[in-house]
C-alpha cells in the first residue's frame, strides 16, 4: 500500500534522475518542489477547491533555490509533483586557485576543485576571510545538475 515502494529513489549522484514524484498532499512548507521546471523551496502552501463539493487543490509558492525567483503553481492534491534531489553539504575551504577555483575538502577527506568563487558579496567576503587567514566552511547547494556555494561560516573552535 505504501506509495514508497512504487517510487524509485535515485541518488542525485548516479546521474539517472534529478527528481522523484511525490503526492502533493505530502509536500510541506520549507521542503522542495519543482515549479516551472525549477528547483524551489516551498515558502507558502494553501488549499482551495472549485465549488463547494469539489476536491482540494494545493497552491504552492516557491523560491528558486539558485536564483531566488518566485514561482507559483496549483495542482490537485491527489496528483504527484516532482521533487528535486537537493543536497546541501559543508566543505572546508583549503585553497583558492589563481583562476578562482575553490579547493574544498569533504568530511571524509576527499578534495574537490570544480567550483568557482560565488558571485557577488558572498564571494568578496569569502575571499577576504580566506585572505585574512580565517578557517572557512562552505555550504554547497546541489540540485538538478547545478552546484554552487550558497553560504560560508567562519569556523571557530569545535566544529567538526
Amino acid at each position, binding site marked *: 500500500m505504501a506509495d514508497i515502494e512504487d517510487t524509485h529513489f535515485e541518488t542525485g549522484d548516479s546521474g539517472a534522475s534529478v527528481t522523484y514524484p511525490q503526492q502533493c*498532499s505530502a509536500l510541506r512548507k520549507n521542503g522542495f518542489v519543482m515549479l516551472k521546471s525549477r528547483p524551489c523551496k516551498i515558502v507558502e502552501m494553501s488549499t*482551495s477547491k472549485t*465549488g463547494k463539493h469539489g476536491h*482540494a487543490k*494545493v497552491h504552492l509558492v516557491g523560491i528558486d533555490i539558485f536564483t531566488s525567483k518566485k514561482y507559483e503553481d496549483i495542482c490537485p492534491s491527489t496528483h504527484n509533483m516532482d521533487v528535486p534531489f537537493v543536497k546541501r553539504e559543508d566543505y572546508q575551504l583549503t585553497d583558492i586557485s589563481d583562476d578562482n577555483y575553490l579547493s574544498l575538502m569533504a*568530511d571524509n577527506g576527499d578534495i574537490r576543485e570544480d567550483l568557482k568563487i560565488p558571485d557577488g558579496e558572498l564571494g568578496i567576503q569569502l575571499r577576504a576571510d580566506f585572505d585574512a587567514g580565517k578557517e572557512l566552511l562552505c555550504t554547497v547547494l546541489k540540485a538538478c545538475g547545478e552546484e554552487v556555494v550558497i*553560504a*560560508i561560516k567562519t569556523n571557530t573552535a569545535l566544529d567538526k
Partner: protein
Amino acid sequence: MADQVLAELEAAAQVILAPPNLITGQQRQSAETVFLNFRKTKSPYQLCREILERSSVDYVLFESAGLIKSALIREWVMMQDEDIRSLRQYLLHYIISKPQLAPFVRERILQVIAIMVKRGSVEDLGRDRGQILNEVEGLIMTGDLRRQLLGCSIISALMQEYATTVKSSDVGLAWEVHFKAKKQFEISDLKRIFKFCFGALGELTKEEIQEALLPLIKHLLSITEGVLVWGYVSPHLPKRLIGVFESAYESDSSPALRLGPMWRDVILDPNVLDLFFTLYWKVRTNPQLAHHARNCLVQLATLNGLVIESGEVETQYLTSYLQSFLKLVSNIDVIDQEAIGISNMVRKVITFFRATLTSLPEDILRSFMEQMTRLTCLFAEGAAQEESMCADDCLYMEAFEHLLEAWIIVLSEAQLFPSEFCKQSSAQIFNTYLSCHLAPPDGNRGAGGKELNDEEIDATEENDRDKFKEQLQTIGNFGRQVPGHSLPLLARLLEDRTNRLSGQLNRMADQSQPMSISSSSLVEALYEDIHWLVLLAGHVLCMDSEGEVALVPSEIMRYSMDQTQQGQVNVETTMRLLASPQNSLSDIDGAEQSADHVIRLISAVFRLCQLEKIAISANLTNMLSPELSSSIVWFLHRWSLSYLLPIESFYSEISTTILQAFGADTPGALWTVSFLLEKIECNINVFKGEPNLIKETMRLLITLVESQIKSDCVLKSGRLCNLVNLATKDRFDLPQAAKRGLMRTLVQIGTAVQDPSSKQQYWAQTLQPLDERFKQLTGSSNFAQTYHQEQIRLGIIDVLESFVGVTQGVQGPVAEGVFERITPVLNELPNLLSLYHNYQEIVQLILELFCECTRRMLCYLPQGDSIRIYEICLRTIQTYARCNTNRTTVENTAEEDTFQDILLLMQLLTNLLTKEIIDCSHTEPAGNPEQNVSPVNVFLFGLNIIMPLMTMDLLKFPSLCLEYFKMITFVCEIHPEKVFDLPVELLSQLLASVELGLFSFGHEITILCCDIIQVLAKHIYTEGRKGRPKNQLMAPFMNLLMNLILSRQINSDLISSTSIPLYYLICCYQEQYQQLVQSFLAAQTDPRIAERLTAAFVQLTACIELDTERPQRLRFRDNFDKFIVNVQGFLMVK
C-alpha cells in the same frame, strides 16, 4: 495685526486647498507651517473674532474656531467669567446671524459653544445651561425653519458633549468631573428636552406630514432617539464598565432604557407609545426618518428600572406596546430595511419583559407568538434568498438571527407558555428552515436564482457548521421540542437522498463514459441536501458540549423511552437496522413501523458512510464530495461524544434502546467502534489530500480514545492492528496531521492499558517499531555518508513526525513510561541536528519535537528525568547556535528561516521555565542539593546561548516579538534576582530590547514592557530595603517613561499601564526623580506654564509615601490620572 495674520492665513489656505499639481511640496509645507503656528497662538479670542467677522474662506473660519476651542481648554482656569460669557454669546449670535455658513464651520462652532456650556456647568451647576435651553426652545418655536433647525443643532451638540465621559479627556477635565457633569445634565435637562421634542413632534405630525417639515421632524426624532439611547449608567459602576456602556452607545447595540422614578409622568404616558407607533407608520417608507423612528420603538421595548413601580404597571405598559406592535406588523408587508428593526423590537421585548409575558392577556400573548413565528419563518426565507443571491447586505439574515436569540429565551422557559404554543411554532420554524436548505421539489433552496456554482473557494473560508453555528444550534433546539416530528422526518429524507445518491453512483460506475453535466449537477444538489440533513441531524440529536461533559439531550432520551413505553418499538428490528448499513431500510422487515426513531436517524448516517465506502471501492472516490464527507465525520464525532458508550450515572433516566445499541459491554458498541475505525482508516487512505477532512477525521479518532471505557472498546475491536500499521510504518504520502494524530491516538490508548505486563507489551507493539526505524536509519555504519540521501532524509522526517505525535498523546500516568522509551532517541537528536543543520525541515522538526516534549511531558516527570531533558535540550540549543553563528548566506529566505527557528527556540525555553511553576511530578527534591537543577537556571543558560542570534530586525516579526517579550516578562516575574545576575552584556541587551519595546511594537508589547519594568523596579526596591546596594540599572527607564508620557508617545489607552511602573521607579530613585522634575521645569520658557507644571508635580506626589505599599500605589495611580489630564491640557507638544 489681524490684517496681516488674516492675509497670511488666507494665502496659506489657498495653497492647501489647491490641486496638488499646481503647487510644490515646499509651498504646501510652508502653508501647513502657517497653520501649525496659528494653532499655538495664546489668548487668541479677539483675533479670532476679527477673523470670523472678516474672512470669507471657510477653511480659515474652521481653523479659527478650532483655535478658540484648544485655547479655551488650555486657558479656561485663567479666564474671567465675563470674557467667557461674552465670547459664548458672540459665537451664538454669530451662527444665528450667518445662516449661509458652511455646515462644517457651523458644527465646529457649535462644538465650541457646547464645550463652553459644559465647562461652565461644572462651576455653576447648569444654571447657565438652563437659560440657553430656554433660548433654544424659543428658537424652535419661532416657526422660521432655519432657526428651528439651528436650535435642534445646538441641542444635539450639547447632548453629544455630555454623552460620553470616558473618552472625552480632551476637554481638560478629569473623568470624575465629566461623569458628574453628565449626571447633572441628565437629571436637570434631559427629560425637559424629551418632553419638548415629544410635544413638538406631536404637533408637527398631527395631520398629514408636510414635505417641507421633514428636515425638522428628522432632527427632532434624532434628538429624541438620543435621549432614548442615552446611557443612563448607575454612578456606582467602575469606570471601566462605564466605558463599555459608552462605547456600546456609539455602536449599534444601544444600552437599555433604564429610567428612574422621575420619568414616570412622561414615559408611561400612553400617548408616548401611541405617538411613536403612529409616527413610524407614517414615515416607514422614508429611509431618512424611518431609521430614527424605528430606533425609538426598539428603545421603548427595553424600558426598565425604577420608573416601573409595580407588576401591574409593567403589564399595562407591555400590553399597550404589544397592541400597537401587533397592529403594525399584522397590517404591513415588511420591507427589507425594517426587518432588523422589527426583529429587534421582538428580541428586546422578550429580553426585558420575559417575566411579564405570561401575565399578558392570553389573546395578546397568542397573537404575539403567532406573529413571532410568522416573522421568524419570513426572515428565514429572506435570509435564504439573500444567501442564494450572494447579497451584500444581510438584512434578513441578521433579523432572522435576532429572532432566534429571542426564541432561545422562550424555549428555555417553554414550560411557562401553554405547551402547544412552543410545539407548533417549533415545528413550523424547523420545517421552514429545512425547506430553505433542500432543493426543489421538497424545498426551495436557490430561490434567489443562483444554485451551487464552481467558484474557487479558499480552504480557510468558514464552513457551514461554523458559519451558521448559532442558527443550527437553535434549529436543533426547535427539533428537540418536537422529536416525534423532526427525527422521523430527517431520517426519511436522509434515507431517500441516500438511495437516490446510490442510484446515481451506480449509473456512473456502470457507464464508463464521462459524466454528463446534468447528472453531475444532480449529484451536486444531492450532496448539498445531504450535507444540510446531516448538519441538522447532528444538531437535533446532540448539543454543543465544549468544556463540559457531552450528554444525550434529555428530550431525545425521553422520546426514545416514550416510544418503547407506547409499544411502538421492536428492539430486535431496531438492532437489525443498525447492524446492516449495507441494506436499505425497506429491506428490513418492520423497520419502517417499529424501529426506534433515534436509532433510525443514526443508522441513516451510518448507511451514508457505507455508501461512501462502496463508492470508494468502486473507484468513484473522485465523484464523492469531501465537503459532505467532512460533515459526516463531524456528525460521527459529535455523536460519539455522547451516545457511544454513555455513562449511565450521568443520567436520571436512560433509554434501554439506546443502552442496548451503544451501551458498555454490548455487541452494538463494539460493532459501532469497529465500524467507525474502519471509516477512519478508509478516510486516511483515500482522502489524504483533503486537509479539512483529515483534520475532522483525526478529531473523531481522538474522541474514540478519550476515556478508559472507549479505549478498551478500541483495544477489543480487532482493528487496533490496522491503526498501528498505519501509524508506525513508513508512509511518506500521509499528511502531517494524520501522521501525528495516529501516533497521538496510540499513546492515548496506552493510558487505558492498566496491567503492567500488558502495558509493556502494548508499548512494544506501538513505540518499539518507531524506535527500530529510527535506529535502522541512523545506526548503520555508513550513516555519515548516506545521511544526505533523499530516501534517508524522508525516513528521518517521517519518523520524527511520528515522535511528535507520541509526545502529543502523553498524559500524566504514562509520561514516565513513554519518556523511558523515547529517551534514547531524544538523546541522539542533538547530533542529528548537527548533521542536518543545512536542512531546515529537519532542524525545525527536531526543535518542534522538543517543544512538544517540554510542553506535554516535562511537568509530569520526576527530577531525574527532568534533568535529562534539560541536558538534552541545552545540547540541542548549543548545537543550533554553533551551526548558525558567524554564518553568511545568500539565500533570501534566510531571515524568514531564522525567524521560524528562533520562535521555536523561544517556545522551548518558555516551556522549560514553566516547569518552575507547574510541576505535577510529586517528587521530593533530591537529598543532595547539587543534583537539584532549577529550571530557571536552565532557562537562563539557554537564553544566554540564543540571545546573540536575536537581532532587533527579528523583533519586527510580530509573533516572534510577542513570544520574546512574553518570555522575558515571565522570567522577570518569577525570578527577578536571577535576571540581575545575568552576564552584563546579556543584561544590557535585554534591557535595550525592553526600552525599544516600550514604544516600537504596539500596545501589547508596551504593556509587557511596563510589566517588566514594574517587577524589576519592585525587586530593586525590596532589595534596597534589605540594606543591599541599590542597582542603578533601571534608573534611565524613569526618565524615558516620563518623557514618553509627556510627549504623548504613549497612547492614551496605555497611560494607565505606565503609572504603577513609574511609581516603583520613583520609589527606587527618589533623588533622580527630583532632578528629573527640576529639569522638566527648567525647560519651560513660559513662566505661567512652569508654575502650573510645578503645581502639577507637587500634586502628583502629595501625601504619598514612597514605600510601594498597595494603598500608596493606588493613591499614586489616581493622582497620576489627574496629573495626565491636567498636564496634557496645558502642555503644548512640539
